[in-house]
């Protein structure tokens, strides 16, 4: 039999209909819904007298525009309507909603795995591009637009052209102080933001195998920033261990059976891909982005590049624009860039492991004068866990704000906004112009690097920082 990779295996398992000249009709196992990209889809259902085909395969939460203040009061009237619209829609169509006061509320890509909804072998969609996060479990998970949200609600299927497959093989191991965020930023810096277009990526290799589930989510989360449709990692024992005992995971003997099926999904030895890229993990340094897309990144010990040093005019032009927007000077050491705001959160880096790493750096130190630093846990469960471990105390004593879960300053749809012209060290995934607030300037980093920047008031090499403090 042909040796297949995991992408082909899952795709083939979900085929409902195949016909020449048409995309494949794929079954969707899990549909995650949030307040921003769903109202028009539910409205479309109503207009056409349609209903939700499988409410039991649909799960909703509010995350994008919810306030992260303690009282969780939405001051903005339009945001409020959006949240209430989701509440009404979930009620009307029988969909479970992790509402704002629910113990399960959180960023959709944090709670899916946490609740065990995300499982190997599933097809998972959500009206959000970072749905690729769920691929960490060995699922085909991708973001869709609102029309497709409506299509999935009505039919539990999608027409999808079979994507090409790509392997990104990460050889060797990451050095001390270098984490999953540095790895994925380095991959994007090396290969660019459109290398994955039209592909689903499988991350393989020793360094990937050694990552925890949470770190794998960080890597898969940013697949979309490399342009990929989705990114995934073959399930192994780490995956199985993570899922055991979670609310929606199978129980007892059914779990053991499921675990066997999951492990069998892993790519066959010698499976082929349309394209394979390789990177050496041991060469990767802590990363900081200097520009306005995630590929404009550098190692902590590099300098802000000179736009004229790029090899083609398009890149030179893009770099000039980016450096002007970011108000940087070519040749400035990256670690010398001063910081006004630090945001630790988002579906890339707001899980318990991320918070532990940040707390380790923060312990016994204090946020630099003039810096505003926020920690926004990805979910209530994460927040509770962190509090049980006393992490909140470490952060608060150091001068960090300890907030309620949500997307928050990742896209600044609520009140958590980086002011005009201010510079933010952020653990999120996008450094686009204005992403964190009109005129805001974003530098993407790992949680440990963000924590160190909060304390120093400028970037610092986390490896030296830990040695000194």
């Amino acid at each position: 039999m042909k040796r297949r990779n995991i992408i082909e295996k899952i795709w083939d398992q979900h085929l409902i209909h195949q016909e020449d000249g048409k995309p494949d009709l794929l079954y969707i196992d899990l549909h995650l819904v949030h307040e921003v990209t769903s109202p028009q889809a539910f409205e479309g259902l109503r207009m056409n007298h349609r209903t939700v085909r499988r409410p039991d395969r649909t799960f909703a939460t509010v995350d994008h525009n919810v306030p992260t203040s303690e009282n969780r009061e939405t001051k903005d009237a339009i945001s409020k309507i959006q949240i209430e619209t989701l509440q009404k829609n979930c009620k009307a169509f029988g969909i479970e909603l992790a509402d704002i006061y629910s113990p399960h509320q959180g960023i959709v890509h944090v709670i899916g795995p946490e609740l065990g909804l995300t499982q190997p072998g599933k097809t998972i969609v959500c009206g959000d591009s970072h749905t690729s996060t769920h691929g960490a479990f060995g699922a085909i998970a991708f973001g869709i637009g609102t029309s497709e949200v409506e299509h999935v609600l009505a039919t539990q299927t999608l027409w999808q052209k079979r994507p090409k497959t790509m392997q990104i093989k990460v050889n060797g191991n990451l050095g001390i102080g270098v984490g999953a965020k540095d790895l994925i930023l380095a991959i994007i810096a090396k290969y660019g933001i459109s290398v994955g277009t039209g592909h689903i990526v499988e991350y393989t290799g020793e360094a990937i195998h050694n990552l925890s589930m949470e770190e794998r989510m960080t890597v898969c989360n940013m697949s979309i920033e490399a342009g990929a449709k989705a990114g995934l990692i073959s399930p192994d024992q780490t995956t199985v261990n993570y899922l055991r005992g979670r609310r929606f995971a199978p129980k007892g003997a059914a779990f053991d059976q499921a675990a066997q099926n999951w492990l069998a999904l892993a790519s066959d030895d010698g499976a082929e891909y349309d394209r394979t890229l390789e990177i050496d993990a041991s060469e990767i340094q802590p990363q900081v982005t200097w520009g306005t897309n995630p590929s404009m990144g550098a190692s902590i010990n590099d300098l802000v590049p000179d736009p004229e040093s790029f090899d083609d005019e398009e890149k030179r032009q893009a770099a000039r624009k980016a450096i002007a927007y970011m108000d940087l000077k070519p040749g400035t050491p990256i670690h010398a860039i001063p910081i006004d705001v630090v945001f630790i959160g988002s579906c890339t880096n707001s899980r318990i492991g991320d918070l532990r790493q940040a707390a380790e750096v923060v312990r016994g130190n204090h946020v630099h004068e003039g810096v505003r630093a926020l920690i926004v846990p990805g979910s209530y469960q994460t927040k509770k866990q962190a509090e049980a471990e006393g992490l909140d105390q470490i952060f608060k004593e150091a001068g960090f704000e300890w907030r309620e879960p949500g997307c928050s300053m990742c896209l600044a749809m609520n009140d958590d906004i980086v002011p005009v012209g201010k510079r933010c060290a952020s653990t999120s995934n996008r450094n686009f112009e204005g992403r964190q607030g009109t005129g805001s300037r974003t530098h993407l980093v790992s949680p440990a690097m963000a924590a160190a920047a909060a304390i120093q008031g400028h970037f610092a090499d986390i490896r030296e920082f830990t040695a000194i403090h």
Partner: protein
Amino acid sequence: MHPFKTFEGRVCPLDRTNVDTDQIIPKQFLKRVERKGFGSCLFYNWRFDEKGNKKKDFVLNKPEYAQSSILVARDNFGCGSSREHAPWALQDYGFRVIIAPSFADIFYNNCQKNGILAIRLDSPRVDELIRRGATEALALTVDLEQQKLSAPNFAEHFEIDPYQKEVLLKGLDEIAMTLTYEDEIVAYEKQHEAVVH
């Protein structure tokens, strides 16, 4: 969805690569629960300054492009988020056709679902359109049936997936079409129910 057959319009050159959806429609405008009314927010941070005044040098604000309906930009147009508000805003503003050497996948799909024709064209040809669009009142005719673009001294064939072409040409309601496969969906569910949660 309106069927798309042939279309003639004025070219607006947007000489930028990697135009992301946060630029096409910034997040502060994503809070509406309707599909309409996003046109005024299109490229907001490029069109308006902090006080809400029009930035004169941005191409969409130049009077000669006020009526343009074909947007031409560079590589990787529409990268970033999955927000369908991006094509809604483009459409509401008046664009029916977007031409670029390449598009981000989700954005490309979202266009088609809304009856916007996204056309991939070789970089040199896009370059030509951008240069000419910047210096002359360039009207372009788009014939989807024939997959042809034409203008004075310009003729080019373009590729499009046959399925996407059909959906656009007929203005198909995709959900209605999918529901004709109901039997197959039910059969699939029966067969697989045991394995998934």
